[in-house]
């Protein structure tokens, strides 16, 4: 698409504009030049999200806690689902953290291009910034809710293993890559087909059922485990539980399938997004 020559910062840089052919170059250097914009977009999303609300940032806590309470009533008290010896509130909240991050990223990210139509049709900037910033903006809610999880773990006296210091960030990364990958696909498709807006609530709901958030992955019979792990969020949630609560097997074949699928979605999403990028301003 465009290349930017390296010159000293006081010289005006030269931009070559030409039609991009083949799989568009990822042009990561351009993304780097606009890194401050990513920061500003994330900062703005976070700032604006709870403006003119009574509870403000407390919503980041209220939402997962309420879901956890509903789940506890339905699946613990009524359905009495097995939780591998962990108190159900901690068990479900551990899963609701990455799930909340994923859902926010998926919904905001998929709508990001269309929501910023006027930017897309008026000025140049690497379009990748929009879904990326939406995904990162969800991290703040995640961090706040994480504090609640720590309190819950203290209350129920659940002691995590020390290796979570490095395993948890890796599972978090997996959640982000998955969310970003799906958001790249859906945001680019959404530019042309607003069907995505309609499909998102259904997709989110369906995905929640296919992910062991409310229940334990151990209820799935062994012969379906591999198929089940095609859902990368299953890997993420199982990983979170393993790292924080010590349940499940830890990294096994199923996890690697999830990781592989996640990377596949991300990389293909990146290429699809880049190849569609040049038509965004014309079709949005």
């Amino acid at each position, binding site marked *: *698409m*465009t290349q930017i020559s390296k010159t000293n910062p006081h010289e*005006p*840089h*030269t*931009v*070559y*504009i*030409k*039609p*991009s*052919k*083949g*799989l568009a170059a990822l042009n990561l250097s351009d993304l780097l030049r*606009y890194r*401050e*914009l990513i*920061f*500003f977009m994330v900062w*703005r999303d976070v*700032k*604006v999200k709870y*403006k*003119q609300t009574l509870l403000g940032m407390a919503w980041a806590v209220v939402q997962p806690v309420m879901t956890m309470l509903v789940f506890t009533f339905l699946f613990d008290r009524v359905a009495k689902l097995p939780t591998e010896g962990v108190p159900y509130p901690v068990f479900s909240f551990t899963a609701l953290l990455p799930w909340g991050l994923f859902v926010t990223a998926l919904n905001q990210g998929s709508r990001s291009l269309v929501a*910023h139509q*006027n*930017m*897309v*049709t*008026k*000025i*140049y*900037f690497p379009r990748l910034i929009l879904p990326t910033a939406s995904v990162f903006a969800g991290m703040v809610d995640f961090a706040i809710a994480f504090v609640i999880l720590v309190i819950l773990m203290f209350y129920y006296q659940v002691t995590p293993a020390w290796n979570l210091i490095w395993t948890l960030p890796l599972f978090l990364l997996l959640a982000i890559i998955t969310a970003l990958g799906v958001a790249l*696909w859906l945001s680019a*498709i959404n530019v*042309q*087909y607003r*069907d995505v807006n309609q499909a998102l609530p259904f997709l989110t709901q369906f995905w929640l059922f296919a992910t062991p958030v409310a229940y334990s992955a151990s209820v799935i019979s062994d012969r379906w485990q591999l198929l089940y792990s095609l859902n990368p969020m299953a890997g993420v949630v199982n990983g979170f539980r393993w790292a924080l609560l010590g349940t499940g097997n830890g990294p096994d074949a199923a996890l690697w399938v999830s990781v592989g699928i996640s990377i596949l979605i991300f990389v*293909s999403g990146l*290429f*699809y997004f880049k*190849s569609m990028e*040049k*038509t965004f*301003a*014309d*079709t949005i």
Partner: protein
Amino acid sequence: MTTAISVHNLGKQYKIGAAETKFRYNMLRDVIVDTVSAPIRLAKAMIGRSDRRMNQNYVWALKDVSFDLEEGKVLGIVGRNGAGKSTLLKILSRVTEPTTGTVTVRGRVGSLLEVGTGFHPELTGRENIYMNGAILGMKRTEIDSKFDEIVDFSEVTQFIDTPVKRYSSGMYLRLAFAVAAHLEPEILVVDEVLAVGDAEFQKKCLGKMGDVAQQGRTVLFVSHNMSAILRLTQEAIVLNKGQLIMRGPTQEAVDYYLSSGQSQAGERTWEADEVPAASQPFTPISLKVKERGGKVVDTVRSTEPVTVEFEYKLSSPVTGLRVGLYVSTMRGEYVFTSFDTDTPELYEKFDTRSAGHYISRAELPADIFNEGRYTVGVNASSFGVKRYFMDENALAFNVDISGAPGTQWGEPRVGPVRPRLNWKIEKRSEIRDCRLNL
């Protein structure tokens, strides 16, 4: 001198009337997209929305355009609506990609169109300055250093920590413009056709443009206002149907433009591809100049009233719509502006115009115009909300002055109007006599 912009065989193809994109360049993408969109297409077909992939129509919005522009020059771009002016600017500012050809641009391209892009109503003035600056490609340190200057220029100092949703529209626009104006790009793009805001604001834009030009930076200026083009540029290019048909000193280019595309016989109709998508729900159909008997004419007699008819469609109801005319001389000086809801009765009656097919008809009284050629521009807008459509050179007509006041002397009269004034000649001594009689 170095070249600031070098455009080589530039072309841009758009598809019209089709929502589907046909992919031309590579196979992998075809496969991916087809796979992904198949269920969506299926769903569309099932709910009865036909897949229009079969009847693709492509149109070249820009074709084989080549030119070089030296640093520090101001270049005017003229052409009718749909001639490719905006497409050219969009490619230069990298919003959209060309289909063919290359452009080399030396330096940052800034545009006064981007005013307020990315402004968020919930953020304060201060926060929006940083946000907007970052969107326009300014570094944080750069915004820091220009912050006070921007605030001063915008004249909103005391409200700088108030959310911009509490700003008046004037304050909002001033702040937005202040950020864009301090971007200090090496190349400034001004598309007056699309510029928002009132006359005051547009004046400010043009003023800023003049400053930029004087600082030795490169400016590209698009306008339908020939006098602005003549005043602000030394050189101009003329675009017609996506092709560069002329480049030369502004005076020559303007004369060429005015003499080539303007000679329709008192009638102008709009084809679908001439109407920008942004004008929805407003679609212009035709503009006609008619003489008293109802005949469409190219030349009108100044001693007889003339009817101007603007026919258009609204695809959805519009509140506060006003449809109006600009009449100007061929030099670009305005003679007058008039809107169909100028009178209080019509203003109230057509507060909201429902969807449908309309004709707004105005009678221009006799004895207004002087001899010469005049252009009629049209405008459809909701005041302070949106300008749906505008074409400042929709058509031109000639005025024949036989029988007009003062023709017995046979000399040309200066000024665009030639009113029949109610002259009275009184003899001073007679007045005194009257008083004495009382």
